[in-house]
């Protein structure tokens, strides 16, 4: 049996190389094409390597759309959302796992039931609520309705449950109040869990599309995904410009991903399989 597997090893290996190449090919194509001239783009047979490295494609992107503003909007909104969501979830998870209070069960099932309702159902009334509250085209309007605490709370609860109650009792005997127990016992002991949940939350918010699309009309308030959608409509088939924009949107993410690959994988497996 083992011999059979060994014999097949080259086949598997070549297969993995091919499928990896297919997965990466679009990125390579994008990377090279971001520097192409429009003549390269229209040439047949296709030109792989740009005839001269043309940096003006990037300038063209900045001329067409306020790209840096979109970028800053996206990162800022996603960071604040992640921070708020994790803070709210961690406090809630602490109360739900380690504190006794009336209505604890009810609160938990209330939270669980919220996970059954897809975004598109709440989107229509949320838009009306946001517009009555004057939140359309504001950062508060982008940030607050996008918070999605139920899942991260349940994720953190499953970690908090593993922290022994003795640790909390010991802190209590030492005269710690509940807030100090939360800040100085719970949080430092669940750094990995908080990190995993934060990474998960950040990725969700950073990719968020439907809500920012609905709640922004003003160009300056757009996040990166929405800005790119409109760039397509404005540039039609100037693909070299689109590739320059795509490169600037993708490369920073890919770099962060390659540096933190282990954390990404952990976040996926934990968030995927825990629920």
């Amino acid at each position, binding site marked *: *049996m083992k011999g059979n*597997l060994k014999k097949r*090893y080259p086949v*598997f*290996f070549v297969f*993995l190389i091919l*499928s*990896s190449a297919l*997965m*990466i090919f*679009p990125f390579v*194509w*994008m990377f090279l094409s971001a520097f192409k001239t429009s003549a390269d*783009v*229209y040439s*047949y047979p*296709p030109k792989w390597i740009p005839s001269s490295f043309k940096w003006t494609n990037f300038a063209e992107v900045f001329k067409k759309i306020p790209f840096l503003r979109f970028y800053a909007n996206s990162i800022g909104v996603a960071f604040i959302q992640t921070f708020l969501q994790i803070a*709210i*979830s961690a*406090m*809630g998870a602490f*109360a*739900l796992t380690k504190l*006794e*209070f*009336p209505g604890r069960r009810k609160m938990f099932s*209330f*939270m669980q039931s919220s996970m*059954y309702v*897809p975004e*598109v*159902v*709440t*989107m*229509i*009334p949320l838009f*009306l*609520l946001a517009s009555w509250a004057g939140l359309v085209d504001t950062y508060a309007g982008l940030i607050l309705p996008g*918070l999605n605490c139920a899942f991260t*709370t349940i994720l953190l609860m499953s970690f908090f449950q593993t922290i022994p109650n003795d640790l909390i009792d010991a802190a209590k005997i030492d005269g710690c109040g509940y*807030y100090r127990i939360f800040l100085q016992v719970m949080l430092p002991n669940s750094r990995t869990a908080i990190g995993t949940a934060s990474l998960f939350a950040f990725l969700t918010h950073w990719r968020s*599309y*439907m809500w920012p699309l*609905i709640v922004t009309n003003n160009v300056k308030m757009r996040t*990166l995904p929405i800005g*790119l*959608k409109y760039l*397509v409509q404005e540039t039609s*088939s100037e*693909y070299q410009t689109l*590739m320059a*924009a*795509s490169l600037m*949107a*993708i490369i920073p993410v890919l770099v962060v991903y390659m540096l933190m*690959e282990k954390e990404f*994988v952990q976040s*996926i*497996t934990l968030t995927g*399989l825990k629920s």
Partner: protein
Amino acid sequence: MKAEKRSPRSRNNLQAREQRRAAAVMITPLFLTLFFLFFLPVVFVVAMSLTNWSLTTPARDFVGTKNFRFVLNDERFWKAMGNTVFYTAIKLVADTSIALFIATLLDRKIHFRRFFRIAHFAPVVVPITASSLIWLWFYDPGIGPLNQVLVSLGLPAMQWLYSEKTALLSVILFSVWKGLGYNVILFLAGLQSIPESYLEAARIDGASERQVFFKVKLPLLAPVTSFVIMMGIINCLKVFTEVDVMTPNHGPLESTLLLVTYIYDQSFVRGKMGRGAAAALVLFIVIFGFTLVQRAFGRKNVSYD
């Protein structure tokens, strides 16, 4: 401290009260987000579905079940439903089988394993809108590399996103590329959690590698597989971003109109929010049905421990 001088019982009372107060403070933000972002909108959307609520006019009259009757008799709604079922079926089969296959290849000692894993997962982390720009070019019927390859192989050029027949398939192909790595990671984690001793035992009993896979690994992987399939179905029913970026006007002859794009179109493009709300509730019932099935399956899964 004052409390220490009191009887133990009143000290306990004091502590319980302190605990309740701390709990109230810490649970309130969570409660508020759930109330405003879940409870209130759900009540609101049900109420809206019974009115002729409009985005552009002040109309808000009670119309009973008219919106539901409209949606369920609307040809476009059923077209969207059909497209969504097609999308879900094709994407799910392709995604699950390819991901499982790649995961089994990665679940062995192989050179450059880390690189392979990174390569397959990379499309998952980049923003969908950014990567779909690349594919928009791939699919260009005139100067897209896909057609240039087809032509150079002597095959007929295709219209990709610009033909009624292939538009939805093109979106699916992009979507499989984009999402495959997620399932690879989940399957891989599942495979690696299978104890080596089980596999050894099967091999000692003379099982071939194929038998080890189908008789030992696959049954043990059942919880992961059912999770991947069920989440896959639910996520396919909710898909919006890639169709909206690649075919902003629902493709040729609305061939890429999906349920969520139908709801979005009714509520925010046509301004018929009552109808949109009704359609959203229909979608919710479908998704809820699948969620119940998943829960039932999740409980039934055999554990070998």
